[in-house]
């Protein structure tokens, strides 16, 4: 029997979580080491999957199957393909850097890392599960730890944000849940086996495809923060502690888009064609609307949060083109945006810990005080505005290019949105990072200072910037040599289009 890599990826964070719960509260060093080891194992194994990926074989690989529930079509089936492997790698990178970023945490350390590991195991579960029961189970696993992380360690209007987030996510996923039941019934398989469903060449009639597609589009779209169901996400990020914001913005949102690509597109090609104008419109509205929202924000976390919503619009637009280039671009954007937004949140969290404020009007001259941190923020910001040479440019280029082939109007509008992103990023950089250092600022309220006490004005030291280097290296490498990534997803995205 071969080594069960996929199960190990899933179990490593869960095992670390259980071990952490058994450790004494005061042994914070051990707890942090356990968290790092748990997420590190998943990272190494995901990297191994990337290296050993079989490019000739676009369908599922590494299939593992364990127990089943007889008579109900439920089984614990894990498999990966070109869609899930990059996102697995993304999740593990974010998790490792999230743990590294929070090394200085002092408040209720044990529960914090246990919940963070639980959260990430949910993300791994969604990406690995090829059974709809477990897919949905893991899809929702994130809700409980997220609720607690925001409520206990969050800052600002955290109770409101936690409730809003939970209600939105569960309302959205209720549609997905219903959709899965219909699939179980209508496919004639009477099984929740997603792999069999995708491999099985099952054709649904056009009417069914239309309404099922919109069901999944709204259901998954809520998690992907698609307009008009996006408003939970900036509130949620703004209140969540740093590592949770990183994971949520980079990974959980991506899972929504992943769900659309995984389930809705290959199963309902006619539905996708029917709703294509809607997807293009929603994607464009997302880009433009969220970009205008960013310009009005003063809180650094809200700025990053809304820019994240705006960037998810690019993903939606890429999916909406229903072309292979568009899908590649969407996948590229998911990966690159995930890394970038994690880097931004890591920097913002650090700024909040040192300056006790995130209001850009109270900040200023950060570059003089903390040059190393500022460089990372600015580089991530430049990725966000699509500077050539960094990965954001490649993703946006692919998506906008393919949008032009489908609809020049939406292409132009989306391009305008990207100009807006340059405006808001440069505005933040000018206000917060250049200029004269601000004087004494108000003392922060609540917990929220999740990276622990840091002296005012202290810059990132060498060891604390490891996660930032790690994240930035991906932005740079993929920006210079995007073929590394596109080779990966190309086979699989071609497969998605076979029904068209």
């Amino acid at each position: 029997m071969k080594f069960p890599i996929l199960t190990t990826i899933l179990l490593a964070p869960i095992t670390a979580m259980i071990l952490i719960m058994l450790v004494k509260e005061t042994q914070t060093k051990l707890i942090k080491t356990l968290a790092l080891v748990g997420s590190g194992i998943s990272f190494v194994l995901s990297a191994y999957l990337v290296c050993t990926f079989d490019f000739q074989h676009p369908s599922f690989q590494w299939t593992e199957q364990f127990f089943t529930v007889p008579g109900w079509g439920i089984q614990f089936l894990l498999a990966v393909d070109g869609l899930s492997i990059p996102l697995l790698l993304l999740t593990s990178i974010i998790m490792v850097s999230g743990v590294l970023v929070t090394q200085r945490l002092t408040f209720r350390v044990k529960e914090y890392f246990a919940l963070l590991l639980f959260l990430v195991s949910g993300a791994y579960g969604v990406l690995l599960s090829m059974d709809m029961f477990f897919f949905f189970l893991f899809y929702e696993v994130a809700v409980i730890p997220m609720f607690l992380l925001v409520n206990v360690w969050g800052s600002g209007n955290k109770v409101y944000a936690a409730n809003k987030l939970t209600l939105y996510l569960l309302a959205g996923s209720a549609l997905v849940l219903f959709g899965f039941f219909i699939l179980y019934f209508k496919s004639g398989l009477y099984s929740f086996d997603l792999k069999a469903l995708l491999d099985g060449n099952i054709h649904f009639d056009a009417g069914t495809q239309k309404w099922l597609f919109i069901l999944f589009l709204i259901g998954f779209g809520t998690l992907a923060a698609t307009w008009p169901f996006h408003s939970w996400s900036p509130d949620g990020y703004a209140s969540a502690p740093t590592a949770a914001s990183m994971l949520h913005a980079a990974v959980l949102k991506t899972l929504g888009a992943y769900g659309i690509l995984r389930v809705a597109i290959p199963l309902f090609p006619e539905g996708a064609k029917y709703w294509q104008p809607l997807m293009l419109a929603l994607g464009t509205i997302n880009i433009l609307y969220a970009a205008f929202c960013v310009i009005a924000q003063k809180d650094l976390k809200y700025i990053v949060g809304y820019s994240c919503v705006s960037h998810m619009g690019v993903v939606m637009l890429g999916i909406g083109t229903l072309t292979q280039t568009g899908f590649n671009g969407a996948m590229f954007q998911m990966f690159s945006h995930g890394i970038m937004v994690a880097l931004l949140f890591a920097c913002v969290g650090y700024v909040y810990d040192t300056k006790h404020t995130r209001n850009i009007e109270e900040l200023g001259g950060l570059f003089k005080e903390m040059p190393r941190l500022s460089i990372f923020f600015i580089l991530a910001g430049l990725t966000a505005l699509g500077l050539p040479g960094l990965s954001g440019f490649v993703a946006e280029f692919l998506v906008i290019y393919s949008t032009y082939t489908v609809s020049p109007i939406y292409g132009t509008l989306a391009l305008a949105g990207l100009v807006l992103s340059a405006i808001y990023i440069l505005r933040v950089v000018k206000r917060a990072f250049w200029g004269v250092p601000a004087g004494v600022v108000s003392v922060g309220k609540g917990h929220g200072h999740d990276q622990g006490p840091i002296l005012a004005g202290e810059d990132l030291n060498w060891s604390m910037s490891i996660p930032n280097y790690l994240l930035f290296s991906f932005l740079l490498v993929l920006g210079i040599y995007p073929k590394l990534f596109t080779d990966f997803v190309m086979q699989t995205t071609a497969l998605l289009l076979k029904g068209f």
Partner: protein
Amino acid sequence: MWFYAIETILTVAAIFFFASSLRRDLNVEALEKFASVCGAVVLASAVLSFGFRGIFFAGTYEMDAFSQFVKLILALGYFIALLISRNIHDIEGKYRPEYFLFLTTATLGMTVLVSAKDLITLYTGLELSSYSLYLLIPMRKHDNASIEAAIKYLIIGIASTGVMIYGFSLLFGLTQTTYLNEIAAKLPGLIHLHVFWVAFFLSVVAFLFKLSLFPLHAWAPDVYEGGNAQTVGFISTVSKVAGLAVFIRFVMMAGHDNRVLEGVWISLAIASMTLGNLSALIQGDMKRLLAYSSIAQAGYLLVGVLCLNDKGLSAAMFYAAVYVVMNFAAFFVVTQISEGGKNVSISQFRGLSSRSPLLALVLMLALFSLAGVPPLAGFTGKWFLFTAAVSSGFKVVAMIAIINSVISLYYYLVIIKEAYTSPDQGAYIQPLVLSPVSRLFCFAVILVLAVAGFFPGILMPLAAKSVSMFFG
């Protein structure tokens, strides 16, 4: 003798509790300890007699796969009820033996109820359990609300039993027998008669009452508010499961292809879920809220039953089993928070996470499980229920049920939010210290909810096996 292990032990325990109620110098603490051990013994005997099969007392009493599975759930509920019945503040020490006595006879009545294959035996079991419960409600001290609740419970209960007896008499008139098997054998000649279906519906009214399904739900909020939390927890779980079991037996007696009353069940299920959830949204008292939530939960259970196939029934039994654990866990938290046994309003949950993180976690998991949030047992149970409904063709019912679980999430979330909000200055900041038994119970609840949620392959085959006998 071994076949009646559960019934015998319950009877012996009842006699013991009765005897101790006669003593003047009663050691309440020792009695409570004994009660917990007694609950554990009953649970163990239910596990041991799980495989027993047999027909007794001239065919009136049968141990079959279904009855043994239900008895296992009943014994589990009984055990939990006795375990969390330590230091009850709102029942005086001198009434404590009676309290345990009536809990025991109620459980005994329910075990008779689920094994009865004869209308008379069934009626005896039903009344034994019902009267014990009627007596438990007014035992609470402090106020007259419990008396009012008891009278409401008694009147509605007796009225519904009366209707049931009328239904039984019609059934007897139609078939000249009181044996369920013989009634079932004579069905082919009866199912065309309207009067049979009227008799059938009237016969199950008492079980709809036990399940607190619409339109026989109105007693629940007042009784839950008036009774003490442990008793009410027992009524909302164990009594409900017993009612569900007999209801399933009756529905299956009429046969799974006779769907005359399907429309009735569908409307009752939808009305119970919707009414329960919408009313729960505006409640301020925790037990009242749990009453409305349990009305809604009964609606979910009915969704499984109305499928009338093995999938639906096994889903309902699975959900019933996990429902006992999660609902009792919610009531357990109420008993711990309650000050001197008084009712708990939702605002009193404020700051629970800083008073006792473990209790707050149990509350959160229990309520999320009731709402159906993965990866908890309640989610998996609902998944089975809704799968069964969709694959049996009840797509609209499943959709309404899913919408209802999203609605329900809101009021559960309000409680959880209070528990995780920092406390105000002043009251309720003192830490809550849990006894070792309570801590153990908390860990057990967390474990059960997680394991039953993640690994449905353990419990589901048992539930499926218990109902497979209805489908030959």
